């Protein structure tokens, strides 16, 4: 299809006196093709209609520059060299994307991750309030949607699919844990900067400490699930999300104790009081939320149970309850204490002066 030249050929642009670059630019410009009758020399147009100027198109570009003088009147898209370059670029990008997608899907299931990030603003606000004030929240069970896989003659099968966090306040998400982890790292470094003990290595060491705490917690949880013979299929990402909610309490502890004690750290009365409150709130939240993971499903609908229709020995129920309690309270105490240790300004400055 012929494209008529952009302004009518008799138009003349005014004479401009600023210097024009004479070199041939290798960067694709997203501009319309140049006017056919121009007194000055303009940099040639290398646009392939492709916003990513990808490198593996060397011969396409060379072809473009050679054919520029002859072919641009008809529009540069008719140039066979440009079209070959376009094809190569397209196939290269598609191969690259396909390769990455294949390899990524082997390690991380992206669709499952998307479920965890499907949050809304109101969900985030209500969930944060829930983590800090879980005392009066009433129903803690996650809501499920039921899909009928209707076969003829047999009962409809319910596959348990949990509602995404957008629709269900009780569903764990990964947005809040990741955000609070990053906020915790930044807040710790800001506090270290305020009290004058900042070194660039503490960024890395705080990150490593936090990630090690989470990984350690997941290990302990996995071992406990195996030892107690818990057959609910609770995914690792769920447990990681619940483990990440403690950072909200740690951030609140650090921030409030810094504000209310005027920089004396968390090792004083106010710091300990705030820490004990957030630890209690976090443990209560975990206790209620993980009940459906560690203890058997107590709903009366046999179709929802997923097939595990057995009665457990009383000792097993007790063992599970005790271990849930121990995890929610005692283990979190250790973790949160490890994450919220801060010396006051005086102690750290004195420490540096003596060192």
């Amino acid at each position, binding site marked *: 299809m012929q494209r008529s030249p952009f302004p009518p050929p008799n138009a003349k642009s005014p004479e401009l006196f600023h210097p024009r670059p004479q070199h041939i630019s290798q960067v694709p410009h997203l501009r319309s093709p140049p006017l056919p009758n121009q007194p000055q020399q303009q940099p040639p147009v290398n646009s392939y209609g492709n916003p990513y100027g990808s490198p593996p198109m060397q011969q396409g570009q060379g072809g473009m520059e050679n054919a520029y003088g002859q072919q641009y009147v008809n529009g540069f898209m008719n140039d066979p060299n440009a079209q070959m370059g376009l094809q190569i670029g397209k196939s290269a990008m598609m191969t690259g994307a396909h390769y990455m997608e294949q390899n990524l899907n082997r390690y991380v299931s992206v669709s499952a991750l998307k479920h965890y990030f499907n949050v809304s603003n109101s969900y985030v606000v209500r969930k944060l309030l829930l983590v800090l004030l879980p005392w009066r929240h009433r129903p803690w069970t996650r809501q499920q949607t039921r899909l009928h896989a209707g076969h003829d003659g047999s009962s409809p099968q319910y596959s348990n699919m949990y509602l995404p966090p957008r629709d269900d306040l009780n569903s764990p998400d990964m947005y809040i844990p990741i955000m609070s982890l990053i906020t915790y790292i930044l807040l710790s470094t800001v506090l270290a900067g305020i009290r004058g003990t900042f070194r660039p290595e503490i960024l*890395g*060491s705080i990150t*490593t400490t936090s990630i*090690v705490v989470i990984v350690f917690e997941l290990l302990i949880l996995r071992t406990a699930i195996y*030892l107690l*013979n818990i057959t609910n299929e609770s995914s690792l990402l769920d447990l990681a999300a619940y483990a990440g909610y403690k950072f909200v309490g740690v951030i609140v502890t650090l921030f409030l104790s810094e504000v209310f004690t005027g920089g004396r750290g968390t090792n004083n009365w106010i710091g300990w009081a705030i820490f004990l409150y957030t630890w209690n709130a976090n443990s209560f939240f975990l206790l209620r939320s993980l009940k459906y993971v560690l203890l058997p499903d107590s709903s009366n609908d046999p179709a929802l149970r997923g097939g595990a229709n057995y009665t457990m*020995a009383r000792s097993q129920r007790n063992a599970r309850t005790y271990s849930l309690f121990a995890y929610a309270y005692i283990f979190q105490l250790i973790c949160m204490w490890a994450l919220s240790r801060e010396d006051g300004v005086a102690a750290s400055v004195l420490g540096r002066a003596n060192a």
Partner: protein
Amino acid sequence: MLFLFGFGKLIYISVLLLNAIAVLSEDRFLARIGMGRSAMAQENVGFGGPRQDPESVKSRLVNLISSIRMVTRVPLIAANVLIIVYEILLG
């Protein structure tokens, strides 16, 4: 320990703990305190069949410990040699 992004101490700790689990003697120690694998098999004969065998905490713990020992025996040799060489060469 310099080049491991701060995981050096962590690797040392985990290797030392795994060593501690791996060197426990099966017949001299674990059987004495009732954690040997043969002890579980003998209990079975008495009951006439595994009743709550794979479900009690103790049997699962025994299984877990012995499988950890069996799996990490060879890689631990390699890890220990690496760490020893590292310590000798680089102080």
